[in-house]
């Protein structure tokens, strides 16, 4: 039962070169017991057999409630977490099989932007040094004057005054710090950026500035994004395709318009219904089906369909049968037997 069919079904894309393939990825964190001899007494099944592809120039959204495994997926792709099972294939290369040196070179091509701009920036470093650090570490730009010029250029690209190079993180607003995080990621001239809740902590007016910046940069530098977020309105706005995760599994995956116009998985439907729209008339006319209960523990996920404990459409077989991810319409994959 643990080897679900979904491990082998890879949603294929007809067009474009595939940049990243995630195949049957699992990440189980051991929960240990014992003081001298650590032994695993259980496992947190943070990611439990997911597969997807990202094409060049595409933005793939990864949504779901907190704890469903989004960040862990990102960390596995970056090889910051060692996958328990499965493959991460980047530009045709299986990242688990290459040497440290090769992996380091790969890391120049893949960058990440985190949620909390404050905790991810060293408070004692000046902004200019923070942005220049990756170039320095990777020996990209050994010449100090050229590095400074590049920092000015990056600040400008990200809508910040080059004079900010001499400031410290605490002297900047949240939105400005997030731009510094983006400038730093761009310093390596990456082709692929993982944005993990990159705009989630920002106020709406600033969030809109950063969203527009991400869109502009995507176009200007032909970037590919994996956009991890829990805000569905933002994800719909930015992403070409979207994967919905629940308890370590992908439950639905489709083109953005298709997913939001025609959600087929009961969990996706519940998520969409929960998002309030800023218009009292629309809200008054909408049906609100509030999904009951809370997300179960990933240590002991429910058998059968992981969503069955909260699903309004569940039938008896949902408690035992693991639904596989099936392509119900072209490019639209759903893991629900009743869809």
């Amino acid at each position, binding site marked *: 039962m643990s080897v679900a069919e979904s491990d082998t079904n890879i949603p294929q894309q007809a067009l474009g070169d595939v940049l990243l393939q995630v195949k049957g990825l699992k990440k189980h964190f051991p929960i240990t017991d014992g003081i001298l001899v650590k032994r695993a007494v259980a496992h947190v099944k943070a990611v439990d057999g997911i597969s997807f592809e990202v094409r060049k120039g595409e933005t793939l959204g990864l949504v779901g409630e907190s704890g469903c495994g989004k960040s862990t997926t990102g960390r596995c792709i970056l090889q910051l977490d060692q996958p328990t099972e499965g493959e991460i294939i980047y530009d045709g290369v299986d990242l688990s099989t290459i040497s440290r040196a090769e992996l380091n070179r790969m890391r120049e091509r893949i960058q990440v932007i985190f949620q909390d701009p404050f905790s991810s920036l060293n408070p004692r470093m000046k902004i200019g040094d923070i942005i220049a650090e990756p170039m320095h570490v990777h020996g990209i730009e050994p010449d100090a004057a050229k590095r400074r010029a590049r920092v000015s250029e990056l600040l400008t690209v990200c809508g910040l005054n080059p004079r900010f190079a001499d400031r410290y993180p605490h002297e900047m607003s949240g939105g400005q710090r997030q731009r510094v995080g983006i400038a730093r990621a761009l310093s390596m001239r990456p082709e692929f950026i993982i944005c993990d809740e990159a705009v989630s902590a920002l106020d709406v007016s600033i969030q809109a500035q950063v969203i527009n910046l991400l869109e502009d940069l995507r176009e200007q530098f032909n970037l590919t994004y994996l956009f991890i977020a829990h805000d569905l309105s933002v994800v719909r706005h930015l992403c070409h395709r979207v994967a919905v995760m629940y308890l370590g599994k992908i439950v639905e995956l489709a083109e953005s318009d298709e997913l939001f116009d025609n959600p087929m998985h009961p969990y996706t439907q519940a998520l969409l219904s929960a998002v309030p729209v800023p218009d009292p008339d629309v809200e008054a006319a909408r049906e*609100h089906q509030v999904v009951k209960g809370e997300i179960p523990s990933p240590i002991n996920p429910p058998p059968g369909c992981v969503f069955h404990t909260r699903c309004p459409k569940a039938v008896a077989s949902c408690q035992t049968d693991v639904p596989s991810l099936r392509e119900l319409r072209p490019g639209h994959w759903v893991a629900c037997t009743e869809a």
Partner: protein
Amino acid sequence: MTALLQIQDLKTQFSTSSGTVKAVDGVTYDVEEGETVAVVGESGCGKSVTALSIMRLVAEPAGKIVGGKILFQDINLLDLDIEEMRNIRGKDIAMVFQEPMTSLNPVLTIGMQLMETLQQHLDVDETAAQARAVELLGLVGISDAERRLAQYPHNLSGGMRQRVMIAMALSCEPKLIIADEPTTALDVTIQAQILELMKDLTRRLGVALIIITHNLGVVARYANRVNVMYAGKIIERGNAREIYHNPKHPYTLGLLRSVPRLDQPRGERLVPIVGHPPDLTRLDGGCAFRPRCTFAVDRCAREIPPLVDVDGGHLSACWEHENVGLNVRKAS
């Protein structure tokens, strides 16, 4: 009949190393009995400090209420001594915070905390308090109440903790609940559960609610009247439909255009508000929104616009309010 709560020209300031922060700078609004009023605005605009001022919980000595009145049932809360205020807090006015973990005591069980509030304000013995605690948890949708009472806050999920906070807020049958970002830290499905619960309970029990949030969607779904705050002031007020379909302040207009919406076509570029909110130690004698405002005229630099009625109960603090609002598309 006068309103349950009347805040009049409230001013709260903090002295910091970089100067005096005018966190709340002349705020006036009413809450009627049983009504849900929203306060929206971005981080740092003074929403929480307004709420803490009502509760007289502003951090002293740095913070100080320097002017205005807060009339609750016609009594000015600012005139009460500490003991009198303690009797009102929790009993007549209760508060629900964004992060329940910081407002729940981590070393006491849920039951002990609930019963403490009950016994502090009501003349009940332990058995009665325990029974009421079980009843309250049932009211907020926590099923196995007896088991939960013996648990500690860290044993509960964020959503459960927020339910407990609401149970505590309701425990003494208050007339007013102030909920400061009650769902901001929660997932959207849990947010929907908690908001439905609060809406249902406040209606059923006739409790007035001030809901503080930065989420425009939450306001649209749950509030009757809306106050929009910017830089320590209320800059627009009206019923929710008016505010969303016919905003009369450039800041409100800007907020509405900044958010992507699920009910509108995809792919349109967002229109952000340029720049960032002002430093509240450095406000001048003009409109605080001026550096970010596309409608600004000369007068805006010289005179602070007062909050005035521009259309039968719809208030705006903008010299150019007549030119604002036409280009917000109404949803079909």
